[in-house]
C-alpha cells in the first residue's frame, strides 16, 4: 500500500462513469498526465471492495476566484503586488483519468468514491492486464520499457502473441524526425524481442531494409551508452550489446565492383555480401517495374511467353538465325536482336501472335530494367541473394537500399518480401517468424497516390502476415499519410515526439488535449504505446539502442574511396581470403576485358568456394566468347523518354 495521493470526486455535473473519473490531489503531488493510479472503493459490491485503475488524461487547476477581475482589483492592477499577499488563494488540483481496468470486472459500474494512490509495479501489471501473459507457466512478455512515476519504475511488457502473432501482429511507430527516436526504438525492440521471444513460439529473425543513409549500417557495432541506459537494460533483462549475428546485403554500384552502401569500410566487409539478381529473378517480378509503364495485355503475353518458353531453355525458331539459351540480360538482348533482324529480313510484321511493335516495346522495357537497376541486375546471370531456406534464429539481415535508385528499391522490396512469404508458407525459411522493418513507410505505402506493387505487398503483410509469422515493423513521420489499412492493422502503435499539425489530424481526436500536448513535447527516449491489452495508451521510457548510431558509424568507419578495378576486385576477394595480394590480382586479370573480370568476380562471390583464389583464376580459362556482349550498362536512369513506347 502506498499513501493516498488523492480522493475521487464526482458531482452531478461531472459524474464518474465506468470509463472515466476525477480526483483531486495535494498541490505538490507527483501526479502528471500519463500517471497510472489505483482507486480503492469504500463500499463492498457483492462482498468485494471494488478497485479501479486509471490513467491520468487531463489536469485542471483553479482557485476560489469567481472572476479574473477580482484578482486585478485585489492587486490594484499591479501584478507586482502579489508578493505582498500574506495568504495564497486556495487552489485545486483536479485530474481526470480514463479507466484502464476494474477489479472485479463485473458488474461493470461507475468508478466508486475512494482513495487514489500511485500504482505500484504490481498494480501496473493488473491495470494493463499484463498479469494474463506474464504468468510463470506461460510468459509471452516482451519488455518495451519502463513506466516511471513518483520514483517508482515498472517494467511494461508487450504480449508476443499480439506483437508477432498469431492473435495480432505488427508494430508501427510515428513521430518527427530526429526527436521521435523511431529508428532507435525499432532497434531496441528487435533486441528485446530477440532476448525475450519465448522458446515455445519458435525462432525469429529480422530483415531490415535500410532506406536512409547509414541508419542501420552498424547494427553489429557497440554504442557508447550512459549509466542510466545500462541500468534499464539490466532491469528489463536485455543484453546490453550489439546484435551478434548480422548480415548485410547491398547491390553493386554502377561499376559492378564496389558495393553501393555506406558500410563500405574494409574493416566491416566481412559480413557484407552483394545483392545481385539475374534475368530469371527479375522477370518473375517484372510487373513491379512495368506496371507503371503502359504495359498492356499484349506486352504481358509476350513477357509470359519469354518467361515460360525462352528463359533457361534451348529455343529454336525459323526466324532466328541460331539456337538460343537465354540466361542473362545479355542473352536476352541477343535473342531480341536476332528475332527483330529475322523479321526485318522477311518483311514480316508479326511473329507468332506478337506484333513487331510489341516486341520492340518489350525489348525496350526489359533492357530498361537492367539499366535502371544497374548494380542489382547482372547481365551475366550470377545471383547473390539472401540465404533463403537457411535463415538463422535471432539473426538480422540488413538489405541496404539507401543508395539504390527507386526502381531498384521497389524490385528489392517486392522480391525479398515475396520470397519471405513464399518460404514461410512452405515453412522452409529456416526460422518460423520474420520481422520486416520498413522505415519511411509513407513513401512505400502512401495513403493516396497510385496503386503500386510495393504498397499492395505491404498491405498484404499487414492483413495476412500474422498467420504466416511475417511481421511488419514500420516507421514514418506522419501516420496520417500512410495507407489506413497498413497502419490500422498494426496491433501495437508507438508514438514519439509528434508534430502539431499531425496531431491536429482526425486520427488523434480520441486523445485528450493534455495527452496531445504531452506527445508534442515528449523527450527523446519516451514513447506512447498502444497495445491490444492496454485499454488506454501508456507512456514508457526506453534505453538508447546498444548499437552504433549511423552517423557515428560513418565517422568511425569512413567509406572506402572509389578505387581502380583491380583494387576493387581485391577488396571483394579478400573477404574470403585475406592472403591475396594486389600483385596477384593484377597478374590474374591482366588485360582481360571489364566484362570478363566482372563475370569472374560475380561467379566467385556467388559460389563462395573454399579456395577463392583458384576459383577466381579458373574463371578466365573458361571464357569463350560466343555472342558479342552489349556495351556494359552505364547509362544514367531514364535516358529514354518514358512516353515513347517505341524508343530503343
Amino acid at each position, binding site marked *: 500500500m502506498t499513501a493516498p495521493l488523492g480522493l475521487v470526486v464526482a458531482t452531478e455535473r461531472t459524474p464518474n462513469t465506468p470509463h472515466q473519473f476525477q480526483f483531486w490531489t495535494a498541490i505538490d503531488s507527483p501526479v502528471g498526465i500519463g500517471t497510472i493510479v489505483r482507486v480503492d472503493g469504500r463500499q463492498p459490491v457483492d462482498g468485494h471492495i471494488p478497485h479501479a485503475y486509471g490513467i491520468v488524461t487531463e489536469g485542471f487547476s483553479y482557485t*476560489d*476566484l*469567481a*472572476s479574473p477581475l*477580482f*484578482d486585478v*482589483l*485585489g*492587486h490594484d492592477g499591479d501584478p507586482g*503586488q*502579489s508578493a*505582498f*499577499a*500574506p*495568504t*495564497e*488563494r*486556495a487552489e485545486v488540483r483536479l485530474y481526470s483519468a480514463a479507466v484502464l481496468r476494474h477489479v472485479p470486472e463485473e458488474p461493470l459500474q461507475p468508478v466508486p468514491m475512494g482513495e487514489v494512490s500511485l500504482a505500484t509495479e504490481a498494480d501496473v501489471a493488473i491495470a494493463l492486464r499484463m498479469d494474463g501473459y506474464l504468468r510463470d507457466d506461460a510468459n509471452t512478455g516482451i519488455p518495451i520499457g519502463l513506466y516511471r512515476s513518483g520514483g517508482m519504475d515498472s517494467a511494461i511488457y508487450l504480449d508476443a502473441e499480439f506483437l508477432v502473432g498469431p492473435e495480432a501482429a505488427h508494430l508501427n511507430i510515428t513521430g518527427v524526425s530526429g526527436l521521435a527516436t523511431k529508428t532507435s526504438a525499432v532497434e531496441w525492440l528487435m533486441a528485446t524481442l530477440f532476448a525475450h521471444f519465448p522458446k515455445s513460439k519458435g525462432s525469429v529473425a529480422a530483415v531490415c531494409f535500410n532506406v536512409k543513409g547509414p541508419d542501420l549500417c552498424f547494427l553489429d557495432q557497440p554504442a557508447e551508452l550512459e549509466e542510466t541506459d545500462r541500468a534499464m537494460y539490466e532491469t528489463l533483462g536485455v543484453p546490453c550489446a550489439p546484435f551478434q549475428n548480422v548480415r548485410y546485403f547491398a547491390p553493386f554500384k554502377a561499376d559492378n565492383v564496389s558495393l553501393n552502401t555506406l558500410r563500405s569500410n574494409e574493416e566491416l566487409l566481412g559480413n557484407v555480401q552483394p545483392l545481385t539478381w539475374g534475368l530469371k529473378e527479375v522477370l518473375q517480378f517484372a510487373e513491379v517495374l512495368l506496371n507503371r509503364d503502359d504495359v498492356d495485355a499484349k506486352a504481358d503475353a509476350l513477357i509470359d511467353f519469354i518467361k515460360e518458353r525462352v528463359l533457361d531453355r534451348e529455343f529454336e525458331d525459323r526466324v532466328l538465325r541460331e539456337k538460343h539459351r537465354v540466361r542473362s540480360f545479355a542473352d536476352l538482348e541477343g535473342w531480341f536482336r536476332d528475332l527483330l533482324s529475322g523479321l526485318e529480313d522477311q518483311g514480316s510484321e508479326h511473329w507468332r501472335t506478337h506484333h513487331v511493335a510489341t516486341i520492340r516495346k518489350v525489348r525496350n522495357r526489359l533492357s530498361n530494367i537492367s539499366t535502371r537497376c544497374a548494380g542489382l541486375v547482372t547481365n551475366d546471370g550470377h545471383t547473390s541473394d539472401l540465404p533463403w531456406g537457411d535463415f538463422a534464429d535471432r539473426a538480422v539481415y540488413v538489405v541496404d537500399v539507401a543508395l539504390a535508385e527507386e526502381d531498384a528499391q521497389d524490385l528489392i522490396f517486392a522480391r525479398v518480401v515475396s520470397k519471405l512469404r513464399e518460404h514461410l508458407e512452405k515453412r522452409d525459411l529456416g526460422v518460423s517468424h520474420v520481422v520486416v522493418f520498413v522505415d519511411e513507410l509513407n513513401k512505400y505505402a502512401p495513403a493516396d497516390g497510385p496503386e503500386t506493387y510495393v504498397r499492395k505487398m505491404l498491405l498484404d503483410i499487414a492483413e495476412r502476415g500474422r498467420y504466416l509469422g511475417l511481421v511488419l515493423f514500420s516507421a514514418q513521420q506522419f501516420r496520417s499519410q500512410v495507407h489506413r489499412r497498413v497502419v490500422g492493422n498494426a496491433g501495437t502503435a508507438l508514438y514519439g515526439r509528434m508534430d502539431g499539425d499531425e496531431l491536429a489530424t482526425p486520427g488523434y481526436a480520441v486523445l485528450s488535449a493534455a495527452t496531445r500536448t504531452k506527445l508534442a513535447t515528449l523527450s527523446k527516449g519516451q514513447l506512447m504505446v498502444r497495445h491490444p491489452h492496454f485499454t488506454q495508451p501508456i507512456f514508457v521510457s526506453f534505453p538508447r539502442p546498444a548499437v552504433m548510431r549511423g552517423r557515428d558509424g560513418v565517422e568511425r568507419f569512413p567509406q572506402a574511396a572509389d578505387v581502380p578495378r583491380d583494387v576493387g576486385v581485391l577488396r571483394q576477394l579478400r573477404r574470403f581470403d585475406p592472403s591475396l595480394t594486389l600483385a596477384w590480382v593484377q597478374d590474374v586479370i591482366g588485360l582481360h576485358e571489364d566484362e570478363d573480370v566482372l563475370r569472374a568476380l560475380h561467379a566467385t562471390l556467388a559460389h563462395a568456394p573454399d579456395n577463392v583464389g583458384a576459383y577466381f583464376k579458373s574463371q578466365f580459362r573458361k571464357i569463350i566468347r560466343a555472342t558479342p556482349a552489349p556495351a556494359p550498362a552505364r547509362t544514367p536512369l531514364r535516358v529514354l523518354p518514358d512516353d515513347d513506347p517505341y524508343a530503343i
Partner: protein
Amino acid sequence: MIDAEGAEDATLRARLVQGVPVPAIRAFLDGTQRSQVIGWVGAFPLVYGTSAAVVRSRTERRLSTWDAPLVQHRVYVPLAYVLAHVARGDLERALGAMLEDTTRPALDGSIPAPHPTLLLERATLAVSRDRERLELALAERWCASRGEPIMIDGGIGASEAVAQSSCAVGVVKSHRTLYAEGDALAIVLALKKGERSSVIRVAPRGRSEVLSWYLRLRDAEGRDALWGLVRVEMCVRSRESISERADELSRWLLAESMPLAAPDPRWDRMAYGIRSAEEFLRATTN
C-alpha cells in the same frame, strides 16, 4: 457616543496609521450557523440548527485547519408549549442530547409568549448564541495554547478570557451599532484608506470592556460611506501604549486586504482568511 468613551484622544479624530502594512496574523476564526424548521407540533415550530466554528491557521502563506473545528447539531423545541401535545419521554427518547428548550424561564420566571413567529425568532437566536459559544470556546483555546495573533470575526467582548487576551483581534464588519454620533460619526465616515479613528473604550451591556477603533481598509471614493470600513477590538491596556498598539494592529489588518475575499459580497471588509474559515465550514457542515 453610545456606551463609549475616548481612550486615546479627548475628542475623536482621524489618525493616519503609521508604518507599512505587515502581515502578522497567524490565524483566523469564524463561525457559521444554519437553522431550518423541521416540523410543527400544533402551532409550535421544531427548529434544526447547526452551529460551527473553526480556526484556520497560516503557515508559509497557506491556510489549514487548526485543531478540531467545533460543530454542534441541536433541535430547538418550545418545550413549555409542546408538552401539551407530546410526552416529554417520547421527545427525549427521539432527540436525546440534541434537545434544546427555547422556553426556559428568564430570571424573573417569565417564559416567551406562545406566538409561533416569536418562538421561531427565539430558536434562531439560540442557534446564534450556540455559534458564538463555539467561537469563543475555540478562541479561548487558541489564546491559551498558542497565544499568537488571531483575527476573530466579530467582537471579542463576549468572553472575559478572550477580551483580556492580547493575542485576539476582533474585526466587526457590520455596523448595525455605530459607536459614534454627530461630529464623531462624520469623522468616522470620512476616514480615508489607511486612516483610523481615535481609540475608544466600549462596554456594551453584558459584555467585557474592550478598546475599539474604526479603520478604513479600502478607498471608498465613489462608494457608500461604510465601504471598506471595519471596527477593530482589542483588550484594554495602559493608556501610554494604546496608540502604538492600535497602529500596529491596524497595519496587520491593512496587510490582509489581499487577496480579495471575493466573490463574497462583503469582500471590501472581509479578510481572505475569514472567508476561508466560512468556506471550510460551508463545505464540511451539511
